[in-house]
């Protein structure tokens, strides 16, 4: 975003696809967060694949590009603790949206979206590797960045900075 344009405030009207989602599938839309001109839709965990599939195939939205999947750890004291963020982009409509799934620490399972976008494969492996989020139905859920015999998930807030002793090579 260039600096001479004012940052869109949160009172601006949401883009039409958010209203479409709210109208057609209100059970998919938990909350809509608008900040800095970006729109985030919190989707209940059980609807994420259906929502992604709809957003990709519907001609009004046509989110044909999954830009990123990333995890976030809000901290061990938070409930829900983990977030999984899906950043979508449409190469034909040129609009973006972020989908967010909230997960409890005890049950970090979410359905895979590799059936919708193939590129989700490695993104989900990375999120599993670093946050321990289990993507049910993933074809090959292995670690991708850390060594295969690693213990723990390195980007969790309670992971010690220098790792665990057998692995720190100190």
């Amino acid at each position, binding site marked *: 975003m260039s600096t001479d344009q004012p940052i869109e405030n949160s009172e601006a009207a949401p883009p039409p696809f958010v209203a479409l989602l709210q109208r057609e599938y209100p059970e998919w839309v938990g909350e809509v967060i608008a900040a800095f001109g970006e729109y985030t839709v919190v989707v209940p965990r059980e609807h994420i694949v259906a929502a992604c599939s709809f957003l990709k195939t519907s001609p009004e939205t046509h989110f044909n590009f999954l830009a990123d999947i990333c995890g976030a750890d809000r901290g061990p004291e938070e409930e829900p603790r983990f977030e999984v963020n899906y950043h979508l982009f449409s190469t034909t409509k040129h609009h973006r949206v972020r989908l967010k799934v909230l997960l409890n620490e005890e049950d970090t399972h979410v359905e895979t979206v590799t059936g919708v976008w193939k590129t989700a494969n490695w993104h989900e492996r990375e999120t599993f590797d670093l946050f321990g989020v289990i993507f049910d139905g993933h074809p090959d859920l292995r670690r991708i*960045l*850390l*060594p295969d*015999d690693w*213990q*723990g998930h*390195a980007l969790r807030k309670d*992971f*010690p*900075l*220098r*790792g*665990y*002793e*057998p*692995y*720190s*090579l*100190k």
Partner: protein
Amino acid sequence: MGLENKIAEALPEVLTTRLDSLINWARKSSLWPATFGLACCAIEMMNATSSRNDLARFGSEVFRASPRQADVMIVSGRVSRKMAPVLRRIYDQMPEPKWVISMGACATSGGVFDNYAIVQGVDKIVPVDVYIPGCPPRPEMLIHAVMMLQEKVMKESVRDRRDVPEAEAREAVVPGTLPITDGSTARQNTLPESRPYTIASRHERRRSS
């Protein structure tokens, strides 16, 4: 009228010298490095072979892509925990005699990367002959390290080199490390119970003082 003609006139056909001197002289004059550029230090390492710095003056410019043809491994850059077994394997594949130069702060001590992902000094994995400080060191410092290594080579004796068979070297466990080779030993090794690292990091100590 070349130099050899002069020598032929001035010297007899037989020279006597120590075998060590002859062999070490041959070894130090062609220290071929194995390519092991890992980070920004590698840019300086490449520059050391350029026309301006010309590492070839010391017989050490032939960077080999195959460890089988290399004599010295220049570890230039931070060694990640995932790269550590690869580095050890490359080292094991180099034929004896072999030497290691640890180039830069990260390879030597982990540098600023005092965290779970970076090996805190490549000497945890392979024996190091020469350490170079700096972040990154200038090419002149690498050349100086090569010259220091040449001095070290000249002091060695053929009788002192332990020519470890490769299979034996593969099983060797460097103190303070996991046996990291082909993964089979890592699986056999029962890990002690994990616990967070107990000694405060350099940054934590600095904060508390």
